[in-house]
């Protein structure tokens, strides 16, 4: 045993071959659903971002902006690339979710089969480096995506609140509520709950401290850490809820824009 290695005992681990297991439950079901869920979202969101149309509903005084197109850099800053401007923003939430600890778990299992499920064999003949080498070593930048995604989230809050104001007959903005306003609000709440449970956030807000009681500031951070931990416990659930809510919000606005359905104004 050399001093830098952790072991000397003869090993009995080793690749068992894909799917090799004594498990008799439906271990393949979870990864299969994750695979289908992520593929479905990936296909829909890419298409929705690609179109560059039907993302802003302005009929009947409403102002509903699809979350895939927020912030509306074309309208705000006049940025108009030769492709859909959604792509100028979307890499941020995409990077945030791709480096999220929960999503990492889910796609390492469902896409890389590494491992496909617990105590189930993996394909033979692969070199494994985990998150110590390119590309997965980049996962360590997750906190930076969290910072950027928080900025995008502020825009989405603005959009959701803006969806409660409708242009009246004289051109004035009036407080009101449509089904779309509620959908946009629920969506941004779900997205916030997802962000609030982020493991990097949990670390930065207080988890990095060893002593929670050593100062007034530490006590405050301890309380915040406790709060974040509540969301963190349900991070997986919020990851899926917010993924679907963001897709469905776009779909709702898109279908309204296309005239296939009509937004109902509640008051």
């Amino acid at each position, binding site marked *: 045993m050399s001093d830098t290695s952790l072991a000397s*005992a003869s090993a009995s*681990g080793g690749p068992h071959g894909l799917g090799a297991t004594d498990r008799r439950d439906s271990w393949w079901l979870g990864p299969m659903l994750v695979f289908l869920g992520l593929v479905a979202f990936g296909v829909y969101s890419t298409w929705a971002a690609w179109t560059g149309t039907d993302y802003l509903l302005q009929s009947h005084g409403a102002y509903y902006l699809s979350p895939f197109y927020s912030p509306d850099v074309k309208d705000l800053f006049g940025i108009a690339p030769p492709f859909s401007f959604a792509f100028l923003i979307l890499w941020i939430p995409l990077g945030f979710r791709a480096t999220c600890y929960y999503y990492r778990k889910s796609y390492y299992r469902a896409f890389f089969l590494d491992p496909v499920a617990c105590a189930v064999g993996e394909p033979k003949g692969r070199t494994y480096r985990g998150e110590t080498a390119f590309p997965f070593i980049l996962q360590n930048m997750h906190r930076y995506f969290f910072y950027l995604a928080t900025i995008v989230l502020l825009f989405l809050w603005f959009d959701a609140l803006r969806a409660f104001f409708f242009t009246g007959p004289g051109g004035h903005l009036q407080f009101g509520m449509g089904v779309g306003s509620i959908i946009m609000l629920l969506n941004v709440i779900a997205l916030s709950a997802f962000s609030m449970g982020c493991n990097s956030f949990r670390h930065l807000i207080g988890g990095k401290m060893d002593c929670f*009681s050593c100062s007034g500031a530490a006590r405050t951070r301890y309380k915040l850490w406790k709060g974040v931990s509540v969301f963190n416990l349900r991070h997986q659930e919020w990851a899926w809820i917010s993924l679907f809510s963001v897709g469905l919000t776009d779909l709702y606005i898109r279908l309204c824009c296309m005239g296939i359905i009509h937004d109902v104004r509640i008051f």
Partner: protein
Amino acid sequence: MSKREFKVWRGDAAGGKFVSYPVDVEEGMVVLDAIHQIQRQQAPDLACRWNCKAAKCGSCSAEVNGKPRLMCKTRLDSLPDGEPVTVHPMRSFPIMRDLVTDVAWNYTVNRKIPPFTPKKDTQWLMQQEDVDRVQEFRKCIECFLCQNVCHVVREHDKKDHFAGPRFFVRIASLEMHPLDSLDRIPLLKKEAGLGLCNITKCCTEVCPEEIHITDNAIIPMKERVVDRYYDPVQIVIRKLTGKDKKD
């Protein structure tokens, strides 16, 4: 009383196979009871390790129907009816005989972790909120089910470069301890191979003490490694302020 078929792995380092035994099932029985009955009535030479039969000593780890479990905590009525129950020794450690494996690697790893080292002139007074977080980790019974299921060990056989989830839990309990003075972040990144863990959570799934191994120990330790080795802003700030130790 009903009968149930048990397929128990019998053999040694040279090889082995599942052997069938009929077992009389009574209400409330756990897998370890069945193994004891087989020892008593049919195979007195069947090797199996156990101690407390109360899920507290961590000795009776095995794979029941392919899932890493404590035999003494696995009730027969929790297993699907009408099919045999398989019991296999843990697959990631060298087999000694039948259900007994050689878990010495774990103790080798453990000895490499610098133990609790209090600060100089420590005031031995702690607040409950500082104790809570490490107390979860103290529940570990060293059953090594997490070490056994972890694919870094089980499939990729990285025992020489990886400490495994049980020891990430132990290191976390020391690193988060407000009265400890050592810095184990370099150990975590290098010898303990924390980066090899891809947070796929099988350790958490099998832990009989329900320790949130991944969320409460591994990920917080990964974040501390990021602070130290990957976060460019923090690295620059530390360089500028000359503060290169832990907070």
